[in-house]
């Protein structure tokens, strides 16, 4: 994967503050192993984030620095968007997809050079063996990237909008 954010430092500084983040500067440093083995099945089921928009975080993520970019309803993240795990200014991992009542529902977690995708249960991908589930997960992920791109475009950040449009294309083309 190519992450064109290396030259977008100023954009990034603003992004952390307002959660309309610029492109991931270091998504390539995503740590695949973190999202694999549940230490406790429900530890990530609890909601994180600001009181006006709470959300569950994917299994294995450190909940202390996760940002949701998307809609909220009744104080819970809802619909298409992204969850980004941050470490300082770096984006470690990104979930693209759909949340329902603050819980991860369908989508893909981008890792270094790969994806974990499908339906989610308690923050973990459920392996149901259905190829259609995977196809739908990448469709949701792509739609989420498009939705985030539109937010940036509307917010006057065309560079980040372009990044997420490109990401939407990549996600859409993952399954042949």
């Amino acid at each position, binding site marked *: *994967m190519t992450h064109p954010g290396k030259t977008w430092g100023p954009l990034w500084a603003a992004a952390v503050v307002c959660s309309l983040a610029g492109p991931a500067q270091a998504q390539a440093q995503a740590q695949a192993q973190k999202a*694999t*083995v549940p230490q406790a099945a429900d530890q990530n089921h609890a909601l994180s984030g600001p009181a006006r928009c709470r959300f569950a975080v994917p299994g294995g993520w450190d909940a202390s620095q996760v940002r949701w970019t998307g809609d909220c309803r009744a104080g819970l993240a809802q619909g298409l968007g992204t969850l980004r795990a941050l470490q300082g200014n770096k984006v470690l991992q990104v979930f693209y997809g759909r949340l329902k009542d603050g819980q991860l529902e369908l989508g893909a977690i981008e890792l270094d050079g790969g994806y974990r995708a499908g339906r989610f249960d308690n923050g973990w991908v459920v392996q149901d063996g259905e*190829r*259609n589930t995977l196809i739908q997960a990448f469709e949701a992920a792509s739609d989420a990237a498009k939705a985030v791109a539109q937010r940036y475009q509307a917010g006057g950040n065309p560079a980040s909008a372009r990044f997420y449009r490109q990401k939407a294309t990549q996600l859409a083309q*993952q399954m*042949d």
Partner: protein
Amino acid sequence: MAASDLSAPVGRGAANHRPDVLVVQKLLLARGYAIQGGADGACGDSTVGAIVDFQSDFLRKPDGVVDPGGTTWRALSAGYPDLTGKPPPPSDNLLKLLPRPASTAINQGLTAVSNAYVLGKLGQPLLAGGYNTLCQEPTNPKLRNNLARESVGPFRVWGLAPAVQSLKAVMADIAKQQPAVYAGLGTQGMMCCRLVRGSTTAISNHSWGTAVDLTLNGVLDARGDDKVFYGLTLIAPIFQRHGWFWGAGFRTEDGMHFEGSKALFDTWVAALK
């Protein structure tokens, strides 16, 4: 329940404690065995059928029961240490990214089979058309008559019968030669009649069940980034020896994808009923 075993038998006429049933159902699903309604903790006909189906791959007389510590349990739980159906912990090493190999270094002596060629040999999978972006089951009777659904070792697939047999032989060699990779292998399917993404006419080459997409430790290699997981480079030569073409050699890199080369495909066509 012990972390590594069932508390009581699960299956036909068994105790079927809900936590045990859930574990068995999740492991069956993770291996590609269908259970109507998914993992719900209730052991009905669909779950018993899936157990029998699973046992038929290695038992002469499947009985539809998973006993604690028994042969079926050991086979079912192997490779899934946390018993949730989630794949084994990843190895940094196997998921290490490498630049995709030069086209001259892979698929040596093999030719990718074109969509048109397969279409000419096997015909339309959906006789009445109607392809869309989701997988549909084929309606072509000859194709349907030549499909097989069975375990190839680390997972279960549904595909063209001779392709499934060939894949089984590939997996047996991987188990012997690259056991660490074998332990982490999974699949995202073989048979899937659908359009190529973004096209209104081109059919996916999964539409005839002659290609397979793999996962490594539950992770799909990102398509089109010109990088591949190290673990895939370890098994690609084994696929090649069996005549399978690796998608890392496609114009758009597709590292998770393997399909029968033209020569291998021709042998499959000759073997069809």
